[in-house]
Structures are given as C-alpha cells and as structure tokens.
C-alpha cells in the first residue's frame, strides 16, 4: 500500500504553531549541541540524530521558508515528504518530551513543547506510528487506549474491590473529589487502583470514580491528535462538573498530570472549574493535615521522578515530603529531582512498539543510577514509567526492584491511632 504524504498539510500545521511563541525558539537555536548530552536517547545511542536540536529541523525549515527574511525571496527549501519520513522516528520514537534538554540549553529552548505541537504535522501528513495512533483512536472510540469501556470499567472496578476488599465508589451522584485512572493501572496494575481507594477511604474523603470521565491518560495529545486530546479533557470536565467535584485527582501517570494540569484549560479555552492534583500532591496534602498514618518503610529505596510530575510539573518536593519520615532508608539517585533521567517511555514512546530497543538502552542509565545509589528498589509515581521499566527490567533480567509510591504508602497504612 502506498501512503500519500501530504507535506503541504504538514507545513500548514508547522506554521500554525509558529504563529505564536514557538517562532522565537526556532530562531534562537545556536546549534551549539549542548542539548545532546542532556537527552537520554542521545546518551544511550550516541547517534547524533538524537540530538534534541536536530529534532526541530523540519519545523524550523517550514518556518524559515515562510517567514522573514528568506520568505521574501522564496529561496529557502520546502519541507519534503522525505523530511517528514526521516524525522518521524525522531519526533515520535525518540522524544519523550521530558524537558531535560531545556535545562542544558543556554538559550532555554523548550524543545519538549515544540515536539508536542509539531507531532500534529505528521498526523496532517498522514504519517506517524500506527500503534500510538491506535491508542489515541481507541481512547476516542472506547474511552481508553487499552479498550476500557465504561462497562468494562464497572466490571473491573467490581473485581478489584472484591479482590482487595476495599470500597471503590463508582458514579456517586455528588462528591468532592473525582479520581481518574490510567488504563495501564486499571488493566495491568490493579493494586494501584485499590491502593488509591484505600488511602482516600482511610482519610475519609468524599470521592468517586465516574464512568463519564475516568481515563486520565491523553493519547490524543501524545499522538498529535488535537481533537482527541480535547475530547478526553472534555469527558473529565463533564464528569467533574456533573458531580460537583472541587478536585480532580490524577493517578500515578505523568503525562496525564501534565496535560490536565497545565494544558487542558488552553485546549478547552476556559479555566478548569476544579483544581487538578497529582495523587502525590493530594497525599502530601492529607499528610500535612495529619490524615495519613503510616508505619515506616525500612527497605532501601530510591525515587524516580517522573518528568511530567517533577521537572515539567513542579511537584518534585511533594514526593520527597511523602517519603520523609516514612522511607527510613531512602537514597537519592544522581542526578535526581528535576534533573532526573527519564525512564525512556514517556510522551507516548511506551506505546510505540518499534521503539522498544531504544527504551531498553535508555533503561541502562536508570539501572546504573539505582546501583550507584545503594538502593535496592526504584519507586516511581507514574504507571507509564513503571510499565516501561518493568519491560526493560525483564529484557535485561535486572534484579533491582520496581515499585509504586502510592502502593507502598497504602501497604504501610495503620489504622488511626486511638485519640
């Protein structure tokens, strides 16, 4: 089958995004190469094509062709179908939109944001990774990238509630808090769902899940399908408005947090009528309010900062606060916090099958970090990181442990001390 590559549609998308602030970034790049060593894909592969600045070439080309000064002369080359084919792998498979390169860039160029917007051009051109696109389409058509329809959600939640002997409210007519789920958790890490339920029940929160808006992940955004991205946001907004929720909790999923917390209001063109908190932020609030009662966790652990929650999300300190006085043998990795290395599977890369080998290479950075830290287990607060790391762990037969922060906290709950 031959694919018709619509380079003009792609160019229009590129230009639509350089109408605004992204233009300065494209004009400001010094081609100094400092971003290369900050990118886990470059460091893992040592292939110059994985240099972050290089990923911007097609959009910069479209911009140069159409904007001052060469636009006047019509001299600059056009974006070609070959360009789009060549760069597809670089903008999808080998960019997790982790934001680390921006920290190293002397101009402060926000490559992650540009990649997020530029992916739309591949959709317009009729190119892009089929499996990532299928995940996005499934979200629109079935409610979730893994095909969790509302009916399936109901069944699954009943099963998890039974299995873990925990009450999981679904479709309560009114609640203060709407909890959303990543289908990675619903299908692959059900313990995580049960853990959140236990914690919220323990703290006496008025909360519910909703079949109207339950999927936290936004593969529309990751795939560059802006219409699906908006639909996914609207579902959550409608569900939250329906039950009068003041807070929407994003579960352990980094990009879900990034999209709903920082981009959703711009997608729907109005401020969100509720606050958005990542589960670690919400648990930190409960802890501050004295509503979390935990026994100590004594195993040697380290914490993997999910890029969208820490570096690009600003919730770095809350995870540390949760670990403080709880994880008694806690070790930081080097680098850590906002400078942490990405898991290699964010930004939709986890859903791209052909990128598996690259992800495994990236995971070597993580294995090395954990081993040097002295910890035995790497704890994360993102189920997508966890899935990526679980697969890579199996690939390398790594003997380090991987765990979820929320699950660990739930496992260490103690009943409220008698006052």
């Amino acid at each position, binding site marked *: 089958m031959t694919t018709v590559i619509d380079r003009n549609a792609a160019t229009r998308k590129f230009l639509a995004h350089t109408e605004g602030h992204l233009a300065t970034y494209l004009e400001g790049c010094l081609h100094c190469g400092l971003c290369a060593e*900050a990118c886990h894909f470059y460091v893992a592969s040592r292939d110059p094509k994985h240099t972050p600045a290089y990923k911007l070439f097609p959009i910069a080309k479209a911009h140069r062709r159409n904007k001052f000064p060469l636009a006047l002369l019509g001299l600059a080359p056009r974006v070609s179908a070959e360009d789009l084919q060549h760069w597809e792998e670089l903008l999808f498979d080998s960019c997790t939109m982790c934001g680390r390169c921006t920290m190293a860039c002397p101009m402060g160029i926000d490559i992650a944001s540009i990649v997020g917007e530029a992916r739309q051009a591949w959709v317009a051109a009729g190119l892009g990774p089929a499996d990532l696109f299928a995940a996005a389409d499934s979200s629109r058509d079935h409610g979730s990238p893994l095909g969790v329809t509302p009916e399936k959600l109901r069944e699954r939640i009943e099963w998890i509630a039974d299995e873990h002997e925990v009450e999981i409210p679904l479709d309560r007519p009114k609640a203060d808090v709407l909890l959303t789920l990543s289908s990675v958790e619903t299908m692959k890490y059900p313990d995580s769902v049960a853990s959140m339920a236990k914690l919220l029940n323990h703290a006496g929160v008025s909360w519910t899940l909703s079949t109207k808006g339950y999927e936290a992940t936004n593969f529309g955004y990751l795939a560059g399908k802006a219409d699906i991205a908006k639909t996914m946001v609207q579902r959550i907004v409608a569900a939250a408005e329906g039950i009068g929720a003041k807070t929407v909790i994003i579960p352990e999923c980094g990009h879900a947090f990034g999209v709903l917390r920082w981009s959703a209001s711009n997608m729907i063109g109005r401020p969100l009528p509720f606050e958005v908190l990542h589960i670690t932020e919400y648990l930190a609030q409960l802890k501050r309010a004295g509503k979390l009662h935990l026994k100590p966790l004594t195993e040697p652990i380290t914490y993997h900062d999910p890029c969208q929650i820490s570096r690009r999300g600003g919730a770095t300190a809350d995870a540390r606060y949760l670990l403080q006085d709880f994880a008694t043998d806690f070790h930081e990795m080097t680098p850590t916090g906002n400078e942490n290395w990405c898991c290699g599977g964010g930004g939709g890369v986890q859903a791209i099958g052909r990128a598996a080998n690259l992800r495994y290479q990236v995971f070597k950075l993580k294995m090395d970090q954990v081993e040097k830290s002295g910890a035995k287990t790497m704890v994360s607060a993102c189920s997508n990181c966890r899935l990526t790391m679980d697969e890579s762990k199996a690939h390398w037969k790594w003997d380090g442990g991987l765990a979820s922060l929320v699950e660990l906290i739930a496992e260490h709950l103690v009943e409220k001390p008698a006052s």
Partner: protein
Amino acid sequence: MTLLDFARGPALAVSFAVFTFGVAWRVLFLVLLPWSRDRSVARGSAPSAVVGAVRGFARHLWPRKAFAGAARFTTVNGYVMHFGLAIAFFGFAPHILFLQSVFGVHWPNLPSGLVSVASVVTLVSLVLALGHRFVSPVLRLISTANDYFSWFVTALPVVSGLMAVSHLWAPYETLLAVHLLSVALLLIWFPFGKLMHAFLVFVTRSETAIHYSRRGTVL
C-alpha cells in the same frame, strides 16, 4: 573617495542602519506575534512573571552540575570568546574615540597590551569553536551555513583588527579600511543570522522561565 573614506563613511552608516532596523524588525516581529494566553492556574507559590524570568535567565548563565562535565568546554570557551570580544570592542582606545565621535559618550580605555591579548585569546577561542564544530559528530550534523558564515563574520573583524594594529602585510590605512568593512559586514549580517541570539536570548530564556515558573519549576 579613498577606500578608508568609504569604509568610515557610507559603509558604516548603511550597515549600522541595516543593523538597527533589522534587529528592531525581528524583535518586534516576534514580540508582536500572537502570544497564546495560558489559562492554567499557576501554583500559589509561583513568582511573578518578571521574577520568574530573571531567575530563569540567571539559571542559564552557567550549566547545572548534572550537565557541567559535558558542557564545560563549550561554556568556558563561549564565555572567553564573548568577554574577549567585549574587551576588545569596548576597551580599545581608538574604538572609544570612534564611538565618542558618533554617539558622544565615552569611557576610560584599557591598556592596549591587554586589548591585544584579549583579541588573540578571542581568536583562539573562535578557532577552537570552529574546530569543535568540525570534529564533533553532533555539531557536524546540526551545523548549517548560517553557523559557518556567522563564525566568519565574527572572526573577520578580530583578525583584521589585529592585523591593523600590528601593521601586518599592508599599509595601515588599507588594513583599517578592511577592518571597518569587516565590521560593516558583521553589522549587516547580524539581524539575518544567528548573531541575533544576542537579543533573542532575553526572549527565549524569559519565555521558558515564565512558562515553567508558573508550574513551580525552573527549567
């Protein structure tokens, strides 16, 4: 009109006009683009946009520890080159006299020996930067004609200036004219190529800093 008259007169005047209008046009062009409004609610702890921008700008003055090793050469060499250029341009007595004749302001000059050393150091760092561009596979891949030409127009005034003060190879007047013409070339190219980073750095760093300081993070 001698070559020197031409260089001193029309060449510098025209190039300076191109520089001024070009830079103003490009900066205005970018600033006047529609900047999308961010409707997300900033963190309570987020600083004001100005404070965020200043903090973010300062944060990028020197690489973080995590990147320091890999960035050391480029950063140190970059600073040496920029400071060297500044010393040679603003500290050299004849430059100050010339600027005074045009703009009417003046300041004390630096000893000419120091200026010569700074110019030679600048030249060395420019050569190292170019060498790095040639040998590093990453830089080879991402370098464009703009990078090489911008290097060339930056190096030319340094070389011609050094030649002029040391009266090398040609009569002083000719060397001075060539030096002034090389400056004219630099000024004309400035708004069109990557030398614009001297202005854009304020825009890009602030833009990123404001974007992320709302989120409670500094990138």
